[in-house]
């Protein structure tokens, strides 16, 4: 019925581990796992800080790490561009945003490099990393990403743009218009939908009358690809293929990573009003961090000592970031007036 179909690794050499078949070095796989772990621990600390009333708000990426780390490693750093969304803690961390920056945002403190503590936490941005600023209205980044891809095509570079969003956000007009441009002009852009089954309390059947977000792709003349967003290797495979396709000038892809939001929508949400604990528990069996760990262990990349070392290092980094941000001053009040306008050209 649609162009979308689950990506399956083609086991050209069934005796080799999947990442080897994909040309991923062992070190890189472990690095990916490390970033997932660090993101998770940072995220967990943020929840704790909220419960302790140290910070006012948290919106979490727990459950999204596999897809995100895969995206970060599939992109060509400093070359490709990303328009992320508010759940992309692991993605932007793996691309180079620091835990200190994330924590400064949590506390809304001076020196927060993404927005100068003007935006709420999780509004990632870093021009030097080609990470375009997240805003709160959902889906606005989708046609913007198409526009940047148009610019790249015009400049004849081999860069690509990726943009991330939730499945609920595909109900917005911005989604439609952005994909429409990308399809018409065959732009080098990858639309990565992180389908975590809910838009706050709304299940996917309240956002669309089709089974999969990827089923929307044929309407824009582009392939839609569904993959297991809890599996970091499968995610890497699917995302890499879409990026290569874009880089070859063959146009955009709509990717759908199936996953689950393992936590409430945000620190303001109580998800018990709209979903069962059984459902949440069932998905926890597919926690992407657990699956990645299992993969690393089974493929001999990780042992208990190594894991303990990772955990230790993560704790230190998170502690440092937390402490650093906690002790940072608030921005001077009048800073609110700065940066509205750029300097006008001299005549």
């Amino acid at each position, binding site marked *: 019925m649609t162009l979308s179909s689950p990506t399956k690794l083609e086991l050209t050499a069934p005796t080799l581990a999947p990442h080897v078949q994909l040309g991923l070095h062992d070190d890189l796989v472990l690095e990916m796992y490390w970033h997932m772990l660090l993101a998770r621990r940072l995220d967990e600390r943020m929840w704790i800080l909220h419960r302790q009333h140290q910070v*006012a*708000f948290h919106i979490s990426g727990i459950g999204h790490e596999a897809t995100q780390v895969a995206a970060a490693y599939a992109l060509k750093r400093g070359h490709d561009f990303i328009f992320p969304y508010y759940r992309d803690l692991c993605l932007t961390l793996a691309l180079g945003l620091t835990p200190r920056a994330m924590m400064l945002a949590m506390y*809304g*403190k*001076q020196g*927060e490099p993404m*927005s*100068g*503590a*003007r*935006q*709420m936490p999780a*509004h990632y941005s870093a021009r030097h990393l080609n990470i375009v600023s997240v*805003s*709160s*209205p*959902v889906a606005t980044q989708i046609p913007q990403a198409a526009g940047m891809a148009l610019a790249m095509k015009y400049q004849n570079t081999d860069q690509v743009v990726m943009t991330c969003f939730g499945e*609920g*956000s595909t*109900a*917005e*007009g*911005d989604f439609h218009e952005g994909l429409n441009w990308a399809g018409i002009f065959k732009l080098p852009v990858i639309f990565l939908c992180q389908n975590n089954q809910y*838009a*706050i*309390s*709304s299940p996917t059947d*309240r*956002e*669309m009358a089709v089974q999969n977000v990827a089923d929307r792709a044929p309407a824009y003349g582009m392939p839609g690809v569904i993959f297991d967003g809890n599996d970091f290797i499968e995610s890497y495979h699917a995302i890499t293929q879409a990026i290569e396709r874009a880089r070859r000038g063959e146009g955009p892809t709509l990717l759908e990573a199936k996953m689950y939001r393992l936590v409430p929508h945000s620190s*303001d*949400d109580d998800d018990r*009003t*709209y979903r069962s604990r059984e459902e949440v528990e069932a998905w926890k069996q597919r926690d992407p961090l657990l699956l990645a760990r299992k993969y690393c262990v089974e493929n001999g990349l990780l042992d208990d000592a190594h894991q303990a070392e990772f955990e230790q290092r993560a704790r230190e980094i998170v502690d440092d970031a937390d402490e650093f941000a906690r002790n940072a001053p*608030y*921005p*001077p*009040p*009048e*800073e*609110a*007036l700065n940066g*509205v306008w750029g300097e006008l050209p001299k005549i």
Partner: protein
Amino acid sequence: MSEITNIEAITRTLQQEMRRDPRIFITGEDVGKRGGVFRVTKGMYEEFGEARVIDSPLSELSLVAVGIGAALYGLRPIVEIQFADFIAPAFNQIVQEAARFRYRTNGDWHAPVLIRAPYGGGIGGGLYHSQSIEATYSHIPGLYVVAPSTPYDIVGMLRYALRVDDPVLFLEHKKTYRLIKGEAPDDDYMIPFCKADIKRVGSDMTVIAYGLMLHETLQAAQELMHEDINVEVIDPRTLNPLDRDTILSSVKKTGKALIVHEDNLTLGLGAEIAALIASEAFADLDAPVMRVAGPDVPAMPYARTMQDFFMPNAQKIADALRKLNAY
């Protein structure tokens, strides 16, 4: 008669009105089982069922358009925008469509959709969860913009809004949801649109304020009483169209006027009120018309120091009034 909060005033009135009028239904993001992100529609899904309390897809443009379509049919849709900041995708449908059906058909069609939107800052919402949107929409003839700020006014005006045959943008200051308490009788009184309310009688100066700023102003006025400065406080309640008479007669009496709002200064609602006064009460003015407003920056920052700097409050208002008094 016991005190209720602003949010209780809304919830209770919505429930009562939906019991009264089967043509009313409500739709918006997460208004169903979740009861809305602010819990305004708490319990309503259970009472009225999913045909009348409808979780919408995440799409504000069509949320408003669906309200318009249902209103044209003769129903009384209530559309909840999750945060006023997110009404922007629906701008075209509100301004070009809802507000123009009556005029563009010379009265043949009309689209009485009621759009509820929590607005305003001071809650750590940063740039996109703190905005004031009243000025943008008060520029639009054919669209009522109301911002009742006490439980009593909310109940009376929400009831009235559901009987008005034109589109209404019903603004709810989210910081006052649980902060502001007051009495609101349980009978079926109504408060008409286009009638300002003198929230405090005074003789030295007139302040026009609404939303959270109304309450900050009343606090400032209280403070100034100790300095023998006697401030009159006008709550316009309906922001479009304005009750010009009440504003003008107060200013003609006091000779001095201050307008307060959170929205940024330039072309905020204060611009129109100041222009009105400068034109119609000129001869009675003893001092420049003053405005205390958010600064001209794109929106309210997150960091608490900057947020406080942005937000007008009782102290800034009192300072301005002292200056005005000394003029």
